[in-house]
C-alpha cells in the first residue's frame, strides 16, 4: 500500500457532472480499514463511474494529515466535495449513509 494512494480517475469536470472528492483515512490494513476500502471502491465504481477523486491516507504513515483533519477513529471517510464537507466513520458495512449523503440512494441496489 502506498502512502498517498491517489486513485484519481478524474473525468475532467464536463459541465453537468459534479466532481466528488473523497479522503479515506485507514490504519494499515487492519480489518475495518480493509473493509471500508473495498466497500468504497465498489460503491464508487458502481455509482460514480469514475467521476471522483479518492485519496487514501494511512494514519500510521502520515499522522500529520490525521492531526490536520482531526482523525481520532479509523476508518474515517471525508467527503470534501461536493460541499458541505461531511464525515463518515466506520467500515462502511452499511452503504446507505454514504449513498444518502451523496444523493445516490436511488441507484438500483440497496442493502
Amino acid at each position: 500500500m502506498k502512502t498517498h494512494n491517489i486513485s484519481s480517475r478524474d473525468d475532467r469536470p464536463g459541465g453537468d457532472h459534479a466532481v466528488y472528492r473523497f479522503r479515506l483515512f485507514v490504519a494499515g490494513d487492519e480489518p475495518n480499514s480493509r473493509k471500508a476500502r473495498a466497500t468504497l471502491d465498489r460503491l464508487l465504481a458502481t455509482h460514480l463511474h469514475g467521476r471522483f477523486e479518492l485519496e487514501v491516507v494511512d494514519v500510521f504513515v502520515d499522522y500529520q494529515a490525521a492531526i490536520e483533519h482531526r482523525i481520532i477513529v479509523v476508518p474515517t471517510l471525508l467527503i470534501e466535495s461536493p460541499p458541505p464537507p461531511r464525515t463518515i466513520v466506520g467500515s462502511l458495512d452499511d452503504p446507505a449513509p454514504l449513498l444518502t449523503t451523496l444523493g445516490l440512494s436511488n441507484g438500483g441496489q440497496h442493502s
Partner: protein
Amino acid sequence: MRRKRKNTHTPEAHNTSAPYAPAPVVHLEKTPTHIRGLDEILEGGLPRSRTTVVNGASGSGKTLLGLEFLYRGALHGEPGIFIGFEEPPGQIRQNAATLGWDLPALEEQNRLFLLDARLKPETLRSGNFSLKGLLAIAAGKCRTMGARRIVIDALEVALRLFDTPRQVRNELHALNDWLQAAGLTTILTFRPSLRGEASIYEDFFESMGDCIIAMDARVTEQISTRRLRVVKYRGSGFGRNEYPYVISHTGLRMAAITSVGLRHKPLGEKISTGNARMDEILDGGYRRGSCILLAGLPGAGKTTLAATFVASACARGERVLYISFEESDAAMVNNMLSTGVVLQPHIEAGRLAFLTRYPESLGAEEHYFAALERIEAFSPAHVVVDAISACHRMGGKQAAFEYLMRLLNACKERGITIMLLNQITGATSYMEISGNEISSMVDTAIFLHYEFSLGETNRVFQVLKSRGSRHSNQKREFRLTDNGFEVVDVYLGEGDVLTGTARQRQEERDLLESQRLAYEIEMKELELKRLRLIQEQMHKARARRAAMAHPEKPSLFDAPPSPENPRS
C-alpha cells in the same frame, strides 16, 4: 500492518525492553508532578512509565491536574502530549494563560502538544471503527517530540462512541498496550457516570491504573471545598487522607497534613510584647514561635495590643504579616494612630505586610493557601490573624477549624509566632475565649474585657495561660491612651493606687467580694458539718434497728458495719 509495526519500533520506543509485568522486587520509579503538595501526598510522584487514573465530576479540576502535570513536566525537561476529548485547545490555552502558563511558547519549542480530539458533530457512522487514528497521532508526536508524559482527558467521551462493552474493552486494551510499549507516564481522566450505567467499563478502566486519584468538589454553605484522595497506588505508600486543594492563581495547590505537629519548632526566646509592663507580667514577654491568643469583646483593645507587638517587632527589623478579615490595612493603620501606634513607616520599609480579604470571598482552602503563599514569599517572623472569630464565615465551623489548624501548623513548622485575635460575644468560658477548639495549640492566652463601675467602664485584662513561663494571673486594668496600651495596677500599685474612683470602688468591691466568698465558704463548711452529723445519726439509728429486729443475725437489708462504710 507492517508499516505500523515498523513505526512503533523505532529506537525511541526502546522502553519496551523494560519488564511491564508486575516486578515487585524492582524499586518503583516515580515521576514528580511538580504540582505543589501533590508529590508529597504521592510520596515522590506518579508511577513512572505507568498509568494513573484521575476521576472526578466536572469542575473538580481533573483536567487542570493533567494539564499542570504536562506544563510543569515540560518546564522540567519532560515533553508531553495532551489529548482532549472535550475541550478545544484554544480554550485550554486561554484557561492556562489565566494561571500565567504560556502554553503556546512550549508548543513552539515542541515541549507540549495539544491534540483536539473532539469528534466532529456532523459525523455519520457506518460499521465498526477503532481509536487507531488517535494512537497513530500520539505515536507520531511522541516520536518527534521525545514525549515522556501523556494526558488523555475525558476518555469516557471517546468510549461512548462504542456500542458494546466488548468494543470498549478492546479499545482500552489497545490503548493500554500502546501506552505501556511507549513507556509514557500517563494520566487518564474520566468523569464517573452519575447513573452507574457505564460501570461496565469503569472497573476495567480503573484496573488500567497503577495509581488512582479521586477528585471531588463539594459545595457546603455556599462555599466550595475541593478534596483529593489517592484511592490506590500499586507498590507504593501514599497519604491516605482526603487532602484539600485549591486552584490558586498559579495552578493547583494542596497540602499534605499527615505530618501535623511532628515538625513543630520548639518555642524560642522571649520577645517583647511592645509594652514594658506587659513584658513584666508575662515574665519577659511572648515566646518566639508560640501561638498567642488575644480574646475579648469588641473594642476591648485586642487590635491595639496586637499592633503594639507588631510595631515593636518591626522596630527590631523583623517582618510581620497581618491577616485582616474585617478592616482594610489603611483603616487599621489609621485607627492605630489614635492610640499612638505608628505602623505606616514599617509598611513602607517592607517590614509589615497586610493580607486583607473578607472571609466570605473565598473558601477555607483558598484562604489558607493565600496565607501560605504570602508567608512563603514574605517570610515573616510573626503572623497576626484578626480575627479568628470571622473564620466561620469561610464556610462553617469545620472550615474555620481546618483553616486555623493548617495555618497554625504552617507557622509552628516555620518557627513563626502566630497571634490570634478572637472576638467573643460575652460569655467567658475558656472554650469560647480560645474559640474553634484550638485551645491546646495556644501557648499564651490573654483575655481582655470591661469592668463596669459607677459611670465608668474600665478595661481589664488577665493572662489566662502562658506556657513555659511564670506569669501573673492577676486581673489588671489597662488604658488605651495616646501613647498606646498602658497597664495600670488595679489593686496594689506604686503611686497611683488611690487615684481613680473606679479603682477605689473596685478595690472596695473586691473586698466585699472576698468577704462574701469567705462567708460562703463558711456557710458551705457548716452545711457540710450538718450533713455529716445527719449521716452519722442515720447510721447509728440503722444499726440500732438491726440489732433490735435480729439480735443474732443482721438483716440482709441492713448494711453490715464495715470499715468502708460511711465513717463517723
